[in-house]
């Protein structure tokens, strides 16, 4: 499927924003400018940008702790993300959830999970609700390859297929489950092959090519939207900064990292836009400058915001506060 120049530029703008947001965190944490815990998404931008243009606003997303790019793609304001990561009142949850637990239902981000494999069952329930309400909304559950080795994923995939639920399982296969190579965690060569076991289609795409990902997503979304059940989409990619920020990545062979960096989806898509005449170098340079500025503004806004007040500890534990023996 060919995408309009406008859509392709939007994809690039999203990718650049995701990259800039990650780069700025890396710089800030690395230099001691600020402190926050972070599971970097750098390298996986093509997948999230494709979701960004393929999902409707009312489509829902369940993502994970490695969710910066997914959240940006789905339209969560950067201030809410950074604010949550840095424990400020501007955060999506006023700093009460933290990096791993960001939700913004207005943007369709219903859940971010810190437990590997915990998201798919919840995605199934969101899809059940859509079906029950007669909505043509789709729930995308995004996760890494590690999630697919959990029982929780297996239960959810089986249920989604059994009931033809409007779910798309997006596996961002960055070739590692935390610090262990994928090949050491499963007998199958391709994660997408798992789908056959559930009676759902499994497709495998180059996760560094946003257009390929968007094409696969559109087909899966369309199918789900029309009552034809779930699809498993494996997007093969890489994460450049390891499992968590500060990961020394001793377990990643140098040549593997080098070739992954050489296939960095952001410059690659930039080159594609130039080669195909979709945009000029000047235009793209401007997009990059805008993204960097946007990130910096968000960061400074967050840094000048307050930490949450102590009384937040008594709020939101229960709908109405309960008195406990002290």
């Amino acid at each position, binding site marked *: 499927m060919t995408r309009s120049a406008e859509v392709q530029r939007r994809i690039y703008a999203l990718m650049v924003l995701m990259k800039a947001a990650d780069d700025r965190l890396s710089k800030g944490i690395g230099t001691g400018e600020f402190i926050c815990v972070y599971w970097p998404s750098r390298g996986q931008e093509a997948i999230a940008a494709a979701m960004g243009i393929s999902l409707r606003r009312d489509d829902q997303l369940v993502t994970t702790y490695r969710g910066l790019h997914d959240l940006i793609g789905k339209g969560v304001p950067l201030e809410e993300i950074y604010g949550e990561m840095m424990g400020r009142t501007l955060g999506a949850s006023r700093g009460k959830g933290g990096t791993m637990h960001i939700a913004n239902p207005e943007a369709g981000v219903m859940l971010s999970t810190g437990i590997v494999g915990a998201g798919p*069952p919840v995605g199934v329930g969101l899809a059940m609700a859509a079906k029950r309400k007669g909505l043509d909304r789709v729930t995308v559950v995004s996760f890494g390859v590690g999630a697919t080795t959990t029982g929780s994923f297996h239960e959810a995939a089986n249920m989604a297929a059994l009931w033809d639920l409007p779910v798309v399982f997006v596996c961002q296969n960055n070739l590692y489950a935390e610090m262990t190579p994928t090949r050491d965690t499963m007998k199958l060569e391709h994660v997408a092959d798992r789908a056959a076991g559930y009676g759902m289609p499994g497709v495998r795409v180059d996760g560094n090519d946003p257009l390929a990902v968007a094409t696969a997503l559109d087909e899966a979304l369309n199918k789900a939207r029309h009552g034809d059940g779930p699809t498993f989409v494996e997007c093969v990619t890489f994460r450049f900064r390891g499992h968590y920020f500060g990961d020394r990545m001793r377990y990643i062979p140098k040549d593997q990292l080098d070739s992954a960096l050489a296939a960095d989806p952001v410059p690659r898509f930039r080159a594609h836009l130039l080669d195909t005449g979709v945009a000029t170098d000047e235009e793209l340079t401007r997009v990059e400058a805008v993204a960097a500025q946007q990130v910096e503004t968000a960061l400074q806004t967050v840094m000048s915001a307050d930490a949450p007040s102590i009384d937040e500890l008594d709020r939101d534990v229960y709908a109405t506060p309960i008195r406990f023996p002290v």
Partner: protein
Amino acid sequence: MDSKEMTMREALNLALDQALEKDERVFLLGEDIADPGASGPTAGLSTKYGHDRVMDTPISEAAIVGAAIGAAIDGLLPVAEIMIMDFIGIAADQIINNAAKLRFMTAGRTTAPITVRTQVYGGLATGATHSQTLEAWFMHIPGMKVIVPSTPRDGKGLLTSAIFDEDPCLFVETIRLQGQKGPVPTDPDFAIPLGQADVKRPGTDVTLICYGRSVHDALAAAATLQDEHAVSAEVVDLRTLVPLDVDTMVSSVRRTRRAVVVHDAVRFAGPGAEIVATLQAELFGELEAPVERVGARFVPTPAAAALEAQVYPSPARVVQAAQRTLQSAKAGIHG
């Protein structure tokens, strides 16, 4: 209020039936809960409301609760069933890390007001993996409410409250109580607020604090204490462990100055530990005797009936514990 004699099973069925009837958002999901396979409190409901609203699921406890959470985030009121409480470990991550914490972690932007119904199978010689009484696990999780009814009336009233409560609720049923009968209000609006203990029998000499099946041991013990020992025991049924009705519990013991906590959960680190700690903090100096605890022995539940009978509390054990509180050194000094 019109009331009808029925079993606990029928009372719970009526609560589910009326909830399904009055609110489209309510639906049930679980293993073998739809007809013709259903034999517990959900029997007949799929025939009445359809398999869309009373859904049989695969054997997938994590996904049953996880799917309930997803549907609840989206505004529905799911009632998930974990057939036997011992299976709840498989769903524990969803309960503990998603349902209980969402409201806090998202500052109220998402919530999961699910009800998880489950059943304790103890006492049926089903062995160690089909007998456990595990409510203490979930009392330990901020965000969860924990409910354990003892009578058909309480079962209906509390389940109705749980289904429509804004917080996730664990509703613990007991297989040995499902057939017990009692009067039950039939009004669909009948509900018992969560967090209100009930004095099941008034008394003046010692307070028996209990919930769920142990309420019946306590009531039997109270009758024996009265008839054979001229001791007046007050029976306080907590009904919900979270919220815990500290006021009712403490005001009873303030009067009687002696207490025995009874539960089917193992005694060591059981719910009674928290209750006793609360009582001593509130009533230190007013107590005539150390608070006694009667709970299951700290062993995996044995299968052989002869052994299993030794594990759980019994009216006789409650009587003995109550007598110890009446014979303690301090009580002796006071005459």
